[in-house]
């Protein structure tokens, strides 16, 4: 069996494959230390499936602290998130040429060639606008759970366009609209548009090409996906695997290719 471990800024994922099929996967909230996150998430997966660490022939770690995870013997090799996302998305759908990956604290747009190799990529990890953090701050301002923001935005009749970009200023703007009696649905719709706007301007820097797949935790927000499609004027595919698991899946696929030939 082969495994991938992906430790992000907010969540950590583990995934195990056997003969090309997914045996199991697990997602947890991160612990302060990435090595602990890696151990806990894999322990949870293994014990749920009645497996042990010994069953894992080759493991690749990716994400934050991936070197440390390897150093502590939890993985045999490390690989960048970009390569893992590329491998994961390509394995799920070989037609994918662009991946839009929106995580808790960053957003990446990755372009792949026909073989699934890395062609180009851009990343925003400097500004919270256009990342999961933005949606978290806005759902707090709206007084709804993060998972309720998408459904609320889908019900917007007339989304209110936000005039700011900065998370901090948009938060003030949201409160202002709510105080003036705007509906939470319309404000949520505007938040979604603002989010999509930031990600699209990032994507345009490398020119997204079909087929486009969305990954990362924010992909689960259907309203964001719809707003991205509208702003880009292109369809976006949703993976047939939890979009938060693509990195760990790609790592496991690599692990199988590397470890299987050893």
């Amino acid at each position, binding site marked *: 069996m082969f495994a991938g471990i992906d430790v992000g800024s907010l969540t950590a994922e583990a995934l195990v494959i056997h003969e090309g099929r997914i045996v199991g996967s697990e997602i947890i909230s991160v612990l302060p230390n990435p090595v602990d996150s890696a151990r806990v998430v894999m322990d949870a997966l293994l014990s749920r499936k009645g497996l042990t660490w010994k069953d894992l022939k080759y493991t690749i770690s990716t994400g934050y602290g991936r070197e440390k995870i390897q150093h502590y013997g939890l993985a045999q090799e490390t690989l960048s998130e970009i390569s893992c996302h590329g491998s994961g998305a390509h394995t799920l759908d070989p037609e994918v040429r662009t991946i839009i990956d929106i995580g808790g*604290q960053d957003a990446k747009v990755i372009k792949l060639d026909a073989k699934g190799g890395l062609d180009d990529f851009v990343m925003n990890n*400097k*500004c*919270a606008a256009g990342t999961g*953090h*933005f949606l978290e*701050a806005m759902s707090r301002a709206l007084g709804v759970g993060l998972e309720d923001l998408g459904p609320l935005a889908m019900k917007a009749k007339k989304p209110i366009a936000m005039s*700011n*970009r*900065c*998370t*901090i*200023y948009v938060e003030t703007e949201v409160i202002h609209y709510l*105080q003036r009696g705007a509906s939470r649905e319309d404000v949520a719709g505007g938040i979604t548009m603002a989010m999509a706007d930031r990600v699209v301007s990032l994507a345009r820097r490398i020119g997204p090409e079909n087929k486009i797949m969305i990954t990362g935790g924010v992909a689960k927000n259907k309203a964001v996906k719809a707003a991205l499609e509208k702003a880009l004027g292109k369809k976006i595919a949703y993976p047939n695997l939890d979009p938060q698991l693509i990195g760990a899946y790609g790592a496991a696929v690599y692990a199988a290719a590397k470890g299987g030939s050893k």
Partner: protein
Amino acid sequence: MITIGCDVGSLFSKAVVMDGDDIIGKKIIATTGRIAAEVHDLLKAVMKSAGISADRVDCLGATGNGVGLVKGASFMEDTVTCAGAAAGYFIPEVRCAIDVGGQSITSIAIDEEGGVRNFMRNDKCASGSGRFLEMMSAKLGLSLRDVDKIAAEARNVVNISSQCGVFAESEVITHVNNGENKGDIMAGVCSAVAKMVSAQGRRFGAAEHFTLLGGVAKIDTITTMVRKSLGGHYHPFPFDPQLATAVGAALLGDSD
């Protein structure tokens, strides 16, 4: 000639009463939701602090985000022109004024006549603004008034690497959770603000003769760090730097 200058800012509204070159009355209030009513009260209060009645005022100059809500203004001008005019008039040798306000950092190039030659503003992003400083202080349970006092206790200035206010806030929380002392974190926050202010000033040639304006310029820890980073000649504004733009509105109204 008695003039009033009123600057309705994003976080604070400021008003001054000037008799020639002297400030004879001043007042600063927080800007909240009811701006028109607040400005009305602000003007009444500032005239009271100067001990004058409305009929003695020759001119009311208004500026700031909420300029349209200053009823009875006889003169209106943008904040860059006003801040530049105040710096140019009171500190003739200054060629650059960096105005760090509630929601923006503005570098203003000033010509020999004290007029605005050019300016550069970041108001798209909260980094380095008064709002940024306020958020970080709030995470430490401090008000802006305490910043200097607490930062003075610092022994090791912590590193805040993010420019984004949201990410910097997470860093502050991490430092608090790691048990770092408040002084060290507060000094780290001041250093982050000073870095952003200096970076913009440097891009705009603030190295020679410059001054710092706006509410953030009241924080000595930050002005000291900016001076150290920029070098050159720093000239403090002769009055409360938070009042500079309001002073400029009064000056320009006077000469109009």
